[in-house]
């Protein structure tokens, strides 16, 4: 790679300075406004919560492995599924996506930092505070009259279960305030990412040349702005109900429990796209590099993403078919939900088109991308099944739904995330990860994932409802539940190898070059890890693959675009 580095000329970076004392380093991290450090803090914070949320899932799967089990009490089980869902969505998936966007977006557009570095730090600490408030409920949840209890109202917290009458004490308040506070952080970060991508681009980085990663994160940020705010509004209403005796969701005073469902899912469904669009962003960067071809259909990819973002704002009530809407309402939400599969299908075809005829390199990130493509397709297919209202009436609230959305979130988003971790680990740490361990992680996780979530569809079709504490033997559910729980063992092993790989490689791994994958976007033009100022001189861009142009001045891309 020395050759490639030499062509970078003015982009080359001087060596780093020596290490500081430990407490100075900690202090530097706490007061930092550097987008790379904040990005890493977001990611590490999300990883910690990933482990916590994973432990909660494991407790549920031990409880459900055999019928009539009493591994935990029903109260604890309710807390586990509430905390698992809330943690994974708000304190794992969102921060980790923000972390990658924070770290990579300025680098990819040739900027020295985010548009508002201090707002960036503020947003991170707000998100962190939200997570701490939520988990403090384990200690202080019931206020003065108990040893503490976590919220147990489910992650979508349907009214009137959340009213004072049915949820006394403070556990629900911790849930509300935790999400409210982290929501402020989310809006701040989304505002920052959008502004950065719009205003901080280097010369020549026109919107038609931005890496797809930045395009997709721009769409994600726009979605966050319009969908997290409704959740904030609904949480404010719920707080008014609980503390000041307001009647928004109080059916006895004429309020409506259904309107909470609307407000929640106006947030809740686009939220899925807030998480999956950054996952698409990872896939759109990694697949071309490991197929040794530029992305197929760049502008169509952008158009499809914007379309997905737009349609996703009009599908929320497909979570509510069973409450009994009018036939027009049903028809609208069936149609809009099915319509969203068209741009999504276009994206899958484009990734396949990128791989088609390419020289595919089967490194760990690419393996996870391929896993993503298959699994996300299946997740989409069960999604189309569930979008048909009559089918939904049968299976809403069953394990089939759980299987479907875990297929999206684990099989889609988490696989894309693992791909991103392996792909950008050399850039962030300056070290190479261990390829063998990575492949072990991939195969263990694939096996575990399919054992758990393929077989989860079956008890759903057999009628097993979600959120049940235990079940009777003799309904044909036992064997499936056992297989589901066995799959968890493989997933835990895979995740342990992943963490081990990252930690071991960080301390003992081989030093990574600046551009280990021979990639084309600007983050690979600077040192690994990049210096605080990112680029010694601000780069100039003339095509969608600026690094290709630098490495191949005799055959640059800009001649053909």
């Amino acid at each position, binding site marked *: 790679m020395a050759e490639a580095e030499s062509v970078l000329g003015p982009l080359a970076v001087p060596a780093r300075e020596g290490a500081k004392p430990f407490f100075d380093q900690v202090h530097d991290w706490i007061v930092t406004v550097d987008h790379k450090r904040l990005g890493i803090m977001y990611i590490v914070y999300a990883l910690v919560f990933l482990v916590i949320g994973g432990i909660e899932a494991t407790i549920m799967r031990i409880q459900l492995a055999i019928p009539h089990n009493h591994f935990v009490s029903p109260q604890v089980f309710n807390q586990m599924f509430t905390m698992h869902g809330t943690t994974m969505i708000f304190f794992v998936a969102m921060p980790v996506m923000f972390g990658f966007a924070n770290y990579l977006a300025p680098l990819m557009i040739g900027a020295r930092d985010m*548009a508002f570095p201090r707002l960036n730090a503020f947003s991170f600490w707000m998100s962190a505070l939200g997570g701490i408030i939520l988990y403090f409920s384990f200690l202080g949840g019931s206020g003065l009259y108990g040893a503490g209890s976590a919220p147990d109202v489910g992650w979508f917290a349907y009214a009137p279960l959340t009213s004072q009458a049915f949820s006394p004490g403070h556990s629900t308040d911790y849930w509300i305030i935790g999400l409210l506070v982290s929501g402020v952080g989310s*809006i701040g970060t989304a505002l920052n990412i959008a502004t950065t991508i719009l205003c901080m681009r280097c*010369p020549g980085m026109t919107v038609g040349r931005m890496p797809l990663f930045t395009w997709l994160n721009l769409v994600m940020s726009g979605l966050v702005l319009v969908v997290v705010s409704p959740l904030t509004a609904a949480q404010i209403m719920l707080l008014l109900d609980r503390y*000041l005796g307001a009647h928004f969701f109080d059916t006895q005073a004429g309020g409506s429990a259904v309107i909470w469902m609307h407000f929640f899912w106006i947030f809740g469904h686009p939220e899925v796209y807030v998480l999956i669009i950054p996952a698409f962003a990872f896939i759109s960067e990694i697949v071309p590099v490991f197929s040794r071809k530029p992305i197929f259909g760049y502008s169509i990819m952008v158009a499809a993403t914007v379309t997905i973002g737009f349609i996703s704002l009009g599908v929320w009530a497909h979570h509510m078919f069973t409450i009994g809407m009018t036939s027009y309402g049903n028809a609208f939400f069936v149609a809009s939900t099915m319509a969203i599969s068209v741009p999504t299908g276009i994206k899958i075809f484009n990734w396949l088109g990128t791989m088609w005829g390419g020289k595919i390199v089967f490194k760990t990130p690419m393996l996870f991308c391929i896993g993503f493509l298959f699994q996300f397709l299946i997740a989409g297919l069960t999604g189309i099944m569930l979008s048909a209202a009559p089918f939904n009436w049968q299976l809403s609230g069953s394990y089939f739904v759980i299987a479907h959305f875990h297929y999206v979130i684990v099989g889609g988003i988490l696989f894309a995330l693992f791909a991103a971790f392996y792909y950008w680990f050399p850039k962030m740490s300056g070290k190479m990860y261990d390829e063998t361990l990575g492949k072990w992680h991939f195969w263990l996780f694939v096996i575990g994932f399919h054992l758990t979530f393929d077989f989860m569809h079956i008890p759903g079709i057999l009628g097993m409802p979600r959120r049940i504490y235990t079940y009777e033997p003799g309904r044909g559910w036992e064997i499936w539940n056992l297989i589901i729980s066995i799959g968890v063992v493989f997933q835990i092993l895979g995740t342990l190898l992943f963490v081990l790989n990252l930690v071991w490689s960080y301390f003992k791994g081989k030093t990574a070059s600046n551009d280990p994958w021979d990639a084309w976007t600007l983050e690979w033009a600077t040192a690994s890890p990049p210096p605080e100022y990112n680029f010694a001189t601000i780069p100039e861009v003339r095509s969608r693959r600026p690094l290709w142009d630098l490495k191949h001045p005799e055959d640059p891309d800009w001649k053909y675009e």
Partner: protein
Amino acid sequence: MAATTIALPPVEMPLPHEYRGRVGMWCLIIAESAIFTIFVVAYLYYAGKSLSGPTPAEVLHVPWFNSVCLFGSSFTIVMAERAIARGKTRLFGIWWLLTITLGAIFILGTAREWYHLIFDDGLTISSSLFGTTFYSLVGLHASHVIIGLTGLSTIMIFTALGFVKQEHAPKIEVFAMYWHFVDAVWVVVLTVVYFVAR
């Protein structure tokens, strides 16, 4: 690697960095609009569904004077922006102070209206759905006015101490965008609360 033989074409300049304040404020305004939308939807959805208590037609009076003051403050802040852009800091201070005064009149007017509603008409946030939605929507807007007034006053203090110069005009302009947004929201809230759902 062969030496570069092809002359590099010139590069286009994307949106300049100086726009970031305005773009960021637009993002905040979009997010805030979404919050207000939900409260307005709740207000309209629950209009006329109260089981008890005074109805809007019985107790609400259109706050003409208040509204004129708030809308007027949008005008005075524009004058202040123009003054600072031309470097006239004293004139800026006068218009800015006038803006604060008009905003303060609005918030005091709201306080008087609420006092009257609570103690004379018996309408509270917990008395009926009308009370719930009225105080939360108008209160959400009023809290934005208070945040705006806090910001305005902070800048006023800096101006009085002589820190605000012509070079700060772009930042003043970004802050003024927020104040304009608060005014624009009042158009919606006023229409919905005092006319549409009366």
